[in-house]
């Protein structure tokens, strides 16, 4: 947190900002990610903008990446930290594959791993400045969860980060139901992204959508206005 005006008394226990290594503030950030479970799997969407303060500097940033056999990670917040998380995950999946025991890490396990990572970094006052959305399907079971930069985590049928918390979740709460068809799921997610485009200044009109099915994984780039 950037306490620009924080004046510390002489005997403060906080120490000066230069004492410890810590992420003070984000530079290049991605905005909201929204996701929901539908009949056959998971749908996740985010726009492709990378903001640098108030400038919409990068317009082809991927805020979501699939990894392992079963999972999909989406993140809003500092892009460099997201790229670092992807490196951690590559290592995790590599070790998992090296066991060569026929088992593979599912989305629930990865969610737990990421929660531990985020929470432990927060405890050291050096957070990864991201809000993560973790979705996937393993053995026919859908999973969708989220972890914030301070380690708050939970699992739900529909999640969103950033502005999506305020703008998308109410819509999802109202209109989501069990056994959404693919078309209805897409329409619902697009409705959320539409509202975000209207009201979030860091949103851009170029979306990335990931579809996670029981049997396979699809990834689309959709330019919409």
């Amino acid at each position, binding site marked *: 947190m950037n306490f620009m005006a924080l004046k510390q008394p002489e005997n403060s226990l906080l120490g000066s900002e230069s004492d410890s290594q810590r992420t003070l*503030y984000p530079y290049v*950030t991605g905005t909201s990610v929204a996701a929901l479970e539908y009949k056959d799997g998971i749908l996740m969407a985010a726009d492709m903008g990378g903001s640098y303060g*108030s400038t919409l500097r990068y317009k*082809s940033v991927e805020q979501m990446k699939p990894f392992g056999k079963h999972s999909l990670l989406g993140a809003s917040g500092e892009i*460099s930290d997201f*790229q670092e998380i992807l490196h951690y995950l590559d290592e995790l999946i590599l070790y998992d594959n090296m066991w060569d025991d026929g088992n593979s890490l599912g989305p629930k396990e990865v969610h737990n791993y990421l929660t531990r990572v985020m929470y432990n970094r927060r405890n050291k006052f050096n957070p990864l400045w991201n809000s993560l959305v973790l979705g996937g399907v393993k053995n026919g079971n859908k999973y969708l969860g989220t972890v914030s930069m301070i380690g708050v985590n939970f699992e739900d049928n529909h999640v969103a980060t950033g502005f999506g918390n305020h703008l998308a979740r109410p819509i999802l709460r109202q209109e989501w139901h069990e056994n959404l068809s693919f078309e209805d799921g897409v329409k619902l997610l697009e409705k959320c992204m539409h509202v975000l485009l209207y009201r979030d200044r860091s949103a851009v009109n170029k979306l990335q959508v990931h579809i996670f099915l029981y049997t396979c994984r699809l990834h689309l780039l959709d330019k919409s206005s």
Partner: protein
Amino acid sequence: MDLEMNLNASHSMGTTIIGVTYNGGVVLGADSRTSTGMYLTDNVYVCRSGSAADSQIVSDYVRYFLHQHTIQLGQSATSKVAANLIRLLSYNNKNMLETGLIVGGWDKYEGGKIYAIPLGGTLIEQPFAIGGSGSSYLYGFFDQAWKEGMTKDEAEQFVVKAVSLAIARDGASGGVVRTVIINSEGVTRNFYPSDKLQLWHEELEPQNSLLDLLNSSSPEPMNI
């Protein structure tokens, strides 16, 4: 759970740096308020902006690592490796560094590539990249005028025009325009002094002295 946005984001980094890809390689360009194309390896150069000390030390380390990597690898390093090394240093020392870099190079596997590594250590591969304080004035220009698949000469002229436009408006950029063209044939460095650049809005023809104006056939005061 997003906390307050970075209030220091658009940091002034006194210079203008540009990297563009064209069909066959890359062109890097910068004004002269910085040491432009810094050599990392034969086929990979980097443009530096931000703290001169920080960007120099990062480039020096990366040159050192790349040199060793080249020996081990037995062939020239790729621009991707150079960019990732820079990313590692920038990201892992993000608290202490203030440097925005653009890496451009040519290798036989991927051809010409441009990588931007802004503050914070994000690595982003793009068909073109701009950076430094002067880049603020170029977003609109690039949005309108950039196109894929330019020829080498088109790309270089485009870069020169862009840097020159930024110099015209950015107080922290100035001097001359330097470009570096990297492709399969090698590296070409060019230099464009101010009098070779075209004039923009409200700029006048350069004169050596008022006396020349007065002595010329038809002196016109305030020839705007």
